[in-house]
């Protein structure tokens, strides 16, 4: 019986190694979403109080290709990504933001400090909408076409490379 106890650490490790092995076969930054090529889920989020009165809901999607970016002020990679979102917005891309599990006042301060590139921002304080969208961890960026269908999902901070090679060409093709 006592011998069995000594095998436990090895068994635990085997389980962890199994998970890591399966995890390796998936690249987290291009993780396919279960919702890919399906209409974006229904949602209606309140605004960040003080930013605007509008909020952000499912009805705002459609009419043209847009990006939806999940972000949070407590998320360090978001901070790294943010200048790139700013530049996308300056280049004329419509980017909507969903502020994920965050205090509105923190989010507002964050936007004030780093710039606010978003057309609309919804506040998803309890993360409910994030679950519907299959958010794995912030930041995540979704490309939505004119019909409101999710055509691409990017997990993790957008890098200049991703924007040039994937996001911009995709948006260009969606406009046609």
């Amino acid at each position: 019986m006592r011998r069995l106890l000594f095998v436990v650490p090895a068994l635990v490790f085997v389980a962890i190694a199994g998970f890591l092995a399966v995890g390796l076969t998936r690249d987290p930054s291009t993780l396919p979403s279960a919702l890919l090529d399906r209409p974006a889920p229904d949602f209606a989020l309140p605004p960040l109080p003080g930013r605007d009165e509008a909020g952000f809901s499912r009805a705002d999607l459609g009419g043209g290709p847009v990006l939806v970016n999940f972000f949070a002020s407590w998320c360090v990679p978001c901070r790294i990504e943010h200048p790139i979102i700013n530049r996308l917005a300056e280049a004329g891309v419509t980017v909507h933001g969903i502020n994920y599990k965050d205090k509105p006042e923190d989010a507002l301060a964050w936007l004030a400090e780093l710039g606010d590139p978003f057309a609309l921002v919804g506040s998803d304080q309890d993360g409910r909408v994030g679950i519907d969208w299959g958010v794995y961890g912030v930041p995540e960026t979704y490309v939505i076409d004119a019909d409101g269908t999710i055509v691409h999902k990017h997990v993790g901070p957008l890098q200049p490379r991703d924007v040039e090679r994937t996001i911009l060409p995709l948006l260009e093709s969606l406009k046609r």
Partner: protein
Amino acid sequence: MIVELGHFALVMALGLAIAQGSLPFLGASRHDLALMRLGSTAAVGQFACITLALAALTNAYVTSDFSLLNVYENSHSTKPLLYKVSGVWGNHEGSLVLWVWILALFGGAVALFGRNLPLPFKARTLAVQGLIGTGFLLFMLFTSNPFERLVPAPLDGTGLNPILQDPGLAFHPPMLYLGYVGLSVTFSFAMAALIEGRVDASWARWVRPWTLVAWVALTLGIALGSWWAYYELGWGGWWFWDPVENASFMPWLAATALLHSAIVVEKRDTLKSWTILLAILAFSLSLLGTFLVRSGVLTSVHAFAVDPSRGVFILALLVIAIGGSLAMFALRAPAMQPGGHFAPVSREGGLLLNNLLLATATATVLLGTLYPLALEVVGGAKISVGPPFFNATFVPLMLPLLLAVPIGATLAWKRGNLMGAFRRLRLAVAAALATMALYLVLATPASLGAALGFGLAVWLIGGSIADLAARVGLLELAPGRIWQRLKGLPASAFAVTIAHAGLGVLIVGITASSALQEERLLAMRPGETTTIGRYEVRFAGVEEGQGPNYSALRATFETTRGGRPVATLHSEKRFFPVEGQPTTEAGIQTTLWRDLYFVLGDRTPDGAWAVRLYLNPFVVWIWGGVGIMAMGGLVSLLDRRLRVGAPTTAAARRGGRPGLRTPVGA
């Protein structure tokens, strides 16, 4: 030419590592002196080779040799010299060179300084160390060659991520690796002990200095990283429970547990298999951290470029090293006989409680780090685990631990007296309760959590001092006698006091900076004045400036208190054209009691600037406390018993092991 020499030196190092990882094993089992001694020679040779390789790579960075792919991708000719050098380890390949260099450094150190080790034991330890080196050198040469050439050579490089161009971060990786890799020595000692099937007091003494060195380095490395995050990321936070931070924190927790349990092995000859397990786990968690950072399994700020073939290779390394050692543990550890018995209330009991809580905390952090991945793999709901999870699970585990620290350190071995401990600590108890009461009366609004935090901090600091005072008979004996007792105390007694008091200082910093922080966010026009805490802050304006490889917007804040000038702070937004990235530099004035921390935001359309002002009380105590803890570790290294080895009488009593300073057969 120098580059090719560096590459060749790495191949040489691999050859030596293979020899070091095999021949001494053979020598130890055949009692072949020459083969056993080969381990030391190979270890020193391997160190020399990797030093050469590291020097060659550093030279390529300093001279901006862009014919090297690695230099092209991570450096630029206009970068300041410090960041050219730190650029060597600011990327995947170069940081691996540093990793194996430190591994070889420790191997060489064991070879040269491990003179009090019996030769077969030393040979086996070095052989395990050689095997680890072999794995990592193979990994580097096959998947991550730092000496890859680029033809034709580009005119200039692509630069280093500007957020990494910072003095704090230049020294953070070497320090952290010193800790990570230092744990490899403990691991090798544990494996050698498992092979020989013997763990005893002398083993615990041999391991202790190496564990201490690794622990001190890891402690300082984590502190540097957190300090960097505090002043560079520009929002006043200092710990984010980011997967990669956790990757460095888990080995630290395990190493801390190991430091404590090894004392029990040394003094009481018990908890042996547990200590061996901790030694294996501490290094395994370092390896896991390496995997998490480099395989692309998790995304993080720290993540290096994602490459699946690398991930597979590291996972294979992980399975061989961790799986192999845990299998060995399962086979050999049950044979180790548990030693002396002890009552639950005793020094051993206290250290066991410490170990249980630290191990649970490690498991919690591991769970939180891997949970999103595990859930994703089994196809469950997709979630992210953030600070709320860790605050809700980790903090409650720390409360009983902190509460128990001074009591455990006061108890006697074998059977302790709880009432006696409280009598010794009565002043600390009173001080802690008084602090809590004072906080609850003065603070508006007061939080119970903060009261608990301050109380625990005073309890830790007061308790460690009270214990030391009781040991030397302060308040009881004549000054002369006290001085004599003080001189008679071993360095380790002071080390315990210092390290535990440092922990208390750290808790003050954590509690105060999270509970009493003041924050103001507003749009200010040049010339406007506002207040934060008792300070008046005048926003003087923004001007443009130029750095060596960036352009900057520089805001000036004049701070006064009651009309008297306190500080003029400059907050910058920098833009790095080569890398195409901006950074923010907060304007910070640090004093012992508070930090003023001002961040410049964007310009609003009507000509004002968004600014964020923080008043962070006691925040410097966080790093000060950690520094004091590390100093405790260094003081413990001075302890005489680590240098003289175990008493011969004890070894002779057990038989079999010859005089500790004379190698077998010599």
